[in-house]
């Protein structure tokens, strides 16, 4: 397909590392691709509030309660920044929300796994936020300006989230035998789903090649996954915990860890809706939205009355 003149100019700009801004010309597919990715990212933050919110009322100390609440609050803030970024591409917040609530838009499958013990708060921070950071650090340099800029702040907050998760794991893995078992159990359950967060292998990733050309993505799924594994294995050693992968082994030649095989059937199944908490997560968001309808209507009605009074 021959490129239009506009498209050639656009690609030149991307190649020259100049940011694309909302009013710039962009290919329709670039816009579509970005809306899909940014809204998925935003939905992940919002749905991601639920598995951790599950432990706010049961956090084992006032300090832990404070940190966890602040963390979940940060996620709501991230959701807001991302929805605002998506709005610059011409989609409204109501439409974004509808897409989430009707299941039309996806969010990260990791949040369809249950948080069943306190150690899951450690594992989610350490592994899930750790994996998310890898992606988000890359996105600080993404080609679309309104997506790249909030990522800088989000990354700072995420790195605090990861540290607090690791710190929970550290206390548990050096605590009583029961606490240590709790930490190991959480690692066993969260390890593979965390690796799945990077998405399908490059060969099977439908949007990857185009996204790389447009510099929306700058590193491949497999590259990021490998960096994450190399880093995390060492952290697990410090904790004295076993990564649940018998094939995991340092490779002198490649200077990376070799590791086992992801259960891709599980991955695609959870995406399709067949994960342990898909239904619960969506139902919780639908319920919050439905229960809140009269609140939002009241705020609108009141604002309308105020505006009328002011005009009179």
């Amino acid at each position, binding site marked *: 397909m021959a490129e239009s003149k506009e498209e050639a100019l656009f690609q030149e700009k991307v190649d020259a590392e100049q940011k694309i801004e909302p009013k710039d010309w962009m290919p329709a597919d670039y816009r579509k691709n970005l809306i899909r990715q940014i809204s998925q990212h935003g939905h992940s933050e*919002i749905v991601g*509030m*639920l598995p951790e*919110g599950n432990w*706010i*009322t*049961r*956090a*084992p*100390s*006032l*300090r*832990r*309660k*404070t940190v966890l*609440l*602040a963390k*979940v*609050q940060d996620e*709501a*803030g991230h*959701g*807001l920044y991302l*929805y605002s970024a998506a709005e610059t591409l011409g989609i409204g917040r109501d439409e974004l929300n509808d897409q989430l609530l009707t299941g039309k838009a996806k969010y990260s499958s990791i949040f369809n796994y249950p948080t069943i013990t*306190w150690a899951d708060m450690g594992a989610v921070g350490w592994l899930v936020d750790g994996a998310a950071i890898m992606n988000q650090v890359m996105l600080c340099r993404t080609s679309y300006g309104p997506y790249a800029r909030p990522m800088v702040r989000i990354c700072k907050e995420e790195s605090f989230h990861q540290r607090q998760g690791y710190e929970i794991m550290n*206390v548990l893995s050096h*605590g*009583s035998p*029961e*606490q240590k078992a709790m930490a190991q159990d959480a690692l066993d359950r969260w390890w593979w789903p965390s690796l799945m967060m990077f998405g399908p292998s490059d060969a099977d990733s439908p949007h990857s090649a185009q996204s790389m050309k447009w510099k929306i993505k700058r590193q491949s799924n497999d590259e990021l996954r490998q960096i994450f594994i190399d880093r995390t294995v060492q952290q697990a050693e410090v904790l004295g915990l076993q990564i649940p992968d018998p094939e995991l082994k340092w490779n002198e030649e490649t200077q990376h860890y070799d590791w086992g095989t992801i259960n891709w059937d599980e991955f695609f199944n959870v995406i399709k809706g067949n994960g342990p908490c898909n239904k619960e997560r969506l139902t*919780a968001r639908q*319920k*919050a939205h439905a*229960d*809140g*309808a*009269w*609140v*939002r*209507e*009241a*705020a609108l*009605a*009141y604002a309308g*009355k105020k505006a009328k009074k002011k005009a009179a």
Partner: protein
Amino acid sequence: MTQQEALFRFAVRMGDNSLVLGHRLSEWCGHGPQLEEDIAQANIALDLIGQARNYLTYAGEVEGKKRSEDDLAYLRTDRDYLNVLLCELPKGDYAQTIARSFLFDAFHLPLQQALTTSTDERLKGIAEKAVKEVTYHLRHSSEWLIRFGDGTEESHSRAQVALNDLWRYTGELFIPDEAEEMLAKAGVVPKLGDIQKEWSATVGRVLKEATLNRPADGWAASGGKKGVHSEHLGPMLAEMQTLQRTYPGVEW
């Protein structure tokens, strides 16, 4: 009762009020009517839990038995919690949450303001920080109550029902116990009668703007301040304290 015992009870009550209400507000996190409210309520809950930590730490020091903020929060049963009943009621719908916060904030702000002149340096220090926070809490709850009252028919009716239901719990705020009477005489804490006047004026002003009716004073529920609670606090504490109770004596 010695003045030290009175001070312990007062600090525990202030801590319990903030902790229990903060806990209730934190239940909204992820489930609020809009994202901005999830963030606002989490903010307020964080302020309140922060205040609770200051008060419970101080209470532990006053008591002198080496109990930490967590010992006091996680290892007391509801019979030893001294918060007012208003704070422990379930969160209800958003009108009930807002109305409860408003009725409490309108009491909490003048109380904290008065405590900034306490003869007790620690209470004074905690209050100086809390005043800024509670000023925002009251603004937030007042604004929403006005929106509900003067919003739609449904929001008006929900807000009025909430106020009517909660009104019976407001009397307890102003009935001093022995500790509060003793400390008020010593100039450590304000007289609750003075706080009630300010509360009443704030409530009158906001309800008028909200076009809501002020419920008639009648029978007032009480007991929280001496540890006789509603049926709601026990389950809340059971949930909150589960890990500390299941695995005693470990670090988290």
